[in-house]
């Protein structure tokens, strides 16, 4: 069978992007479990740490907040607007109960990192053999 290849004409006006953004714009989450704690990592580019609220209810961790829209200066016009703004809300089921008063969080380069120490009863312990 003959396959015909068609050449797609390339149009290159000022500032067009070559690869298309595929629209995955939500706060992506990773969860890593360690022996004594879990670490939740959330991508929140452009979000100020004052605009993030973290809450814990049992083993449900909720991260919510707002990403403020970057305003358009007077007289400017949008060419492309893909970055999302507005409120975000994510809940994740943790794999163990948490020592709630020992949870800590930090935000570096648009990534939120929450460290959730396990509750005593969820920590691994070695059983001595009598």
């Amino acid at each position, binding site marked *: 069978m003959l396959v015909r290849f068609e050449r797609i004409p390339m149009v290159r006006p000022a500032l067009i992007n070559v690869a298309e953004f595929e629209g995955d714009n939500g706060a992506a989450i990773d*969860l890593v479990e360690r022996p004594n704690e879990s670490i939740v990592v959330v991508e*929140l580019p452009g979000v100020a740490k004052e605009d993030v609220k973290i809450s814990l209810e049992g083993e449900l961790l909720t991260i919510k907040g707002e990403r403020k829209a970057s305003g358009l200066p007077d007289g400017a016009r949008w060419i492309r607007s893909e970055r999302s703004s507005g409120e975000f809300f994510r809940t994740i089921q943790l794999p163990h109960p948490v020592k709630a008063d020992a949870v800590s969080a930090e935000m570096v380069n648009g990534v939120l990192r929450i460290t959730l120490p396990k509750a005593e009863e969820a920590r691994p312990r070695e059983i001595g053999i009598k």
Partner: protein
Amino acid sequence: MNNDEVVVRREHATQPPVAEEQYRVPAADVYETSEAFVLMLDLPGAMRESISLTLESGEMRVKADVKPLHRQEGTLLFNEMQGAGFFRAFSIGDGIDTGNVEARFEQGVLTVKLFKSEDVKPREIYIN
């Protein structure tokens, strides 16, 4: 120059990034003012030193390597962050002064300001 500024490098004959498909295309906002084009790209988890911004033969390339070190710290139970980082290329028209580019990186967002060449800026002509 403050700490958040990214150095704009001009490189020649750069190879396309290895395994480009491992890189995510970052979301971008672009707006135009009378004096410049301004791009904002979401590069969460990148560090200023891990971002390369190059202008070369009519193309601007942004590449940011992200090392998700947390993944090696334990067992990954929930995994949404993909790829080795971010890569995106923009083609740049003639109206841009490639010698006049500003860039800074704050809160995981790279902002690049590409100033227009003098001859394409709107200008007002004074009438005698």
